[in-house]
């Protein structure tokens, strides 16, 4: 593997791929240089913009009760802008792909269906703060996150009537993984979180009337545990490190688990007191990360696909409703995970119908910026009618693509585009033709043609 191929692989897996100018800039650089830049960029953290709530919060209880519906209504209405802001970060090549991708990873890990912008931004910014930091810090904040507590019904979890939903998912999905605790542990953990709730969808509090402060036995330990104690006990378990390392491996390396590789990451994670960055560095440097059965053998999720297309043409979304419809069409909506387990990896994204849509999506998105010149690829057909009629509201900049690739001619241009866009060899013969078109059209046909292949679905 050449250094450029390794850099490409790192940025595709650990981020959402390179922009054309980044790709050209890395051509004469070593892998070590590319890797350093990759991690250095990730230390610059971006946050989502919080909507203004202080005016409402400053009001009297009576007044708040009167205005609550309209306050929450405004929150719901602000969600499209929150989604746009995040999508535009993921799709912006000047923003760290790794940091955005880790934010997406944790969003799927702590899957929460959120309807209110303020709660969404609160949770997402907490994730952003610790996305590459310490998992303990991340988890301690998440178990107090209003949106998550609400989503998992912890508002109904009282000492008078224990609701196990939050306790179960904490063990099954957030820390230990299924099979590493008993039903009794679920009940005891749930008791420790009784009375943990929130005011007005934004503010964490513990209601002592509903909290069970009696003794509990959790994972063999006895004490008057509250939620923080439960988290502390979970952070002493190597199984927690193993479970998270396994999920990172499946997300970033391969949906097929490899016990030895996961164990290697587990040791690093546990030894480093649940610091996330050392695990990522180890994973993205391991020889197995660059093996031929790993490179290009993972399927992009719809959000990853959209973000990778955005980074090629510097696309930005302007219209929240349009972004919502596009994501609905491709079946992955930020802040609306399918269930508490979050989104699947790999083959689960692919059905006959989804594949058709995915082969078309780059053409749709880019055509919004660039009225197709004669000869440029049309979408594959009527599956697109769901969204082809609407304006996706994107802006973009094709200049980097022109500057980077127009000076290359003929087969040289094509082979360079193949290396830039695809992690594997393209289909042969290519399913499109550039015969008899102007040089700019040729370039665009090549780009959209390559992006409209099953190969481009890979990362």
């Amino acid at each position, binding site marked *: 593997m050449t250094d450029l191929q390794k850099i490409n692989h790192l940025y595709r897996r650990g981020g959402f791929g390179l922009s054309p100018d980044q790709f050209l800039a890395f051509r004469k650089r070593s892998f070590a240089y590319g890797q350093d830049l990759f991690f250095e960029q990730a230390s610059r953290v971006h946050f989502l913009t919080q909507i203004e709530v202080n005016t409402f919060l400053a009001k009297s209880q009576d007044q708040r009760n009167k205005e609550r519906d309209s306050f929450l209504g405004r929150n719901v209405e602000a969600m499209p802008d929150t989604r746009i802001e995040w999508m535009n970060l993921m799709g912006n090549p000047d923003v760290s792909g790794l940091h955005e991708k880790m934010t997406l990873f944790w969003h799927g890990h702590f899957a929460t269906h959120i309807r209110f912008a303020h709660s969404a931004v609160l949770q997402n910014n907490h994730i952003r703060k610790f996305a590459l930091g310490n998992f303990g810090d991340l988890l301690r904040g998440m178990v107090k996150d209003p949106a998550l507590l609400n989503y998992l*019904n912890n508002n*109904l979890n009282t000492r008078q*009537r224990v*609701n*196990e*939903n939050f306790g*179960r998912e904490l063990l*099954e999905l957030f820390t230990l993984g*299924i099979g590493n605790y008993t*039903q009794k542990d679920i*009940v005891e953990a749930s008791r420790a979180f009784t009375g943990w709730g929130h005011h007005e969808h934004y503010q964490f509090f513990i209601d002592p009337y509903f909290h069970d402060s009696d003794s509990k036995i959790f994972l063999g330990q006895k004490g008057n545990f509250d939620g923080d104690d439960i988290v502390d006990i979970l952070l002493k378990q190597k199984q927690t490190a193993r479970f998270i390392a396994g999920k990172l491996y499946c997300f970033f390396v391969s949906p097929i688990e490899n016990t030895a590789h996961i164990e290697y990451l587990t040791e690093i994670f546990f030894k480093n007191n649940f610091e996330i960055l050392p695990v990522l560095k180890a994973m993205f440097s391991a020889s197995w990360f660059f093996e*031929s*059965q790993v490179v*290009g*053998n*993972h*399927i992009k999720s719809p959000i990853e696909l959209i973000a990778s297309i955005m980074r090629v043409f510097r696309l930005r979304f302007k219209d929240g409703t349009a972004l919502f419809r596009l994501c609905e069409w491709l079946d992955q909506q930020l802040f609306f995970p399918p*269930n*508490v*387990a979050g989104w699947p990896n*790999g*083959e*689960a994204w*692919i*059905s*006959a*119908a*989804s*594949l*058709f849509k995915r*082969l078309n999506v780059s053409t749709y998105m880019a055509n919004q910026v660039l009225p197709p010149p004669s000869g440029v*690829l049309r979408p*594959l*057909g*009527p*599956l697109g*009618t769901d969204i082809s009629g609407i304006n996706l509201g994107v802006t973009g900049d094709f200049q980097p693509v022109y500057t980077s690739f127009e000076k290359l001619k003929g087969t040289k241009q094509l082979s360079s585009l193949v290396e830039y866009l695809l992690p*594997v*060899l393209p*289909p*042969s*013969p*290519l*399913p*499109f033709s550039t015969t008899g078109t102007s040089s700019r059209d040729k370039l665009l046909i090549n780009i959209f043609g390559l992006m*409209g*292949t*099953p*190969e481009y*679905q*890979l990362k």
Partner: protein
Amino acid sequence: MPGFLRPFDGLSPQGEKILVVVQLSGGNDGLNTLVPFRNDIYYKSRPNLAIHSSKVLRLNDEQGFNSILPEMADLYNRGMMTIVNNVGYDNPARSHFRAMDIWHSASGANQTLDTGWIGRYLDSSCLGCERAAQALFMDSAQILALKGKNRVGFSAGEIHKLNEAANTPRFQQLLKAKHAADHQELDFMYKTLASAVSTAGYLTETAGKFKSRSMYPTGYLSQQLKSTTELIAGGCYSRIYYTNLTGFDTHTNQLADQSIQLTQLSKALGVFIKDMEQIGRLDDVLVMVFSEFGRRVKENGSGTDHGTANQLYLIGKHLPKAGMFNAAPDLQKLDDVGDLIHTVDFRQVYIEVVEKWLQVNSSQIIAGSFPRLSLL
């Protein structure tokens, strides 16, 4: 690497048995579906949620359908339904995903299988046969139940659009192209495309032969059952139609939420069975309705928590054990969490369906040995 469907050819002959699965996702509360209307424990455990005996369509002295299920009660009274109580398995999983995987893969609670029971049926039923049997998932995603080692069922949501798209030149060229070798995920996508073309064409043509004029209620299950009707009427060569209705995870607001879903279920099944009668295929159709688990006996606020054993419903014209197959749940004898204890393993039901209805040997499909039920 699972293999993919070959083009469908020919018609499903009259007399060939068809299985329609209705999956209720999220854990349907069985006790409020089939109500133990004389049971004090039930009423004491559910002061807010219990269905009053005046709102029960009585099937026998103990159990009756919630009155929002009149079509189901009618099927029962016409001798077209077998109700199996207390279906579950040892060490029940109360996680949706794990429980659903167990039902899909027909594994035990302590075992993980990466193929589904219907997928293994597809794998094994074709040994030595002329034409492979097929299975369709009427929803649009993938589902473990239909995934075999060598063959997978086809997700038949959106087939019309798929068929139109498949006929565009760029797509046709893509299909003829060679792709990089030794890439499992790439291989998977190309095979998905190839199977999509042949199957979408066939299904579109077949479903187009018959339009049901019956009034299905609105809702997602209804659409799937309507398409199923049209495919069966058109003579589709599929032995299995797998449908899915979500929305049963009623931790809160159960009375209202469950009633919306159950109303659709009952109405849609009623219309579907009428349609089968009308096209003369009722003799050939067996419907199996299940959910990944039932819910806890004791209510919790306005909803119920994840539970264990549940009823399973078989609907058809030729049911030797039509009626109540076994005793109602024993609410005095609950497990340590307060959940029902199963008396029938779900794999016993699968074995009956595979051996007696689909008429193939179940040994390659359902692992483990279980006492035979004599259910079908």
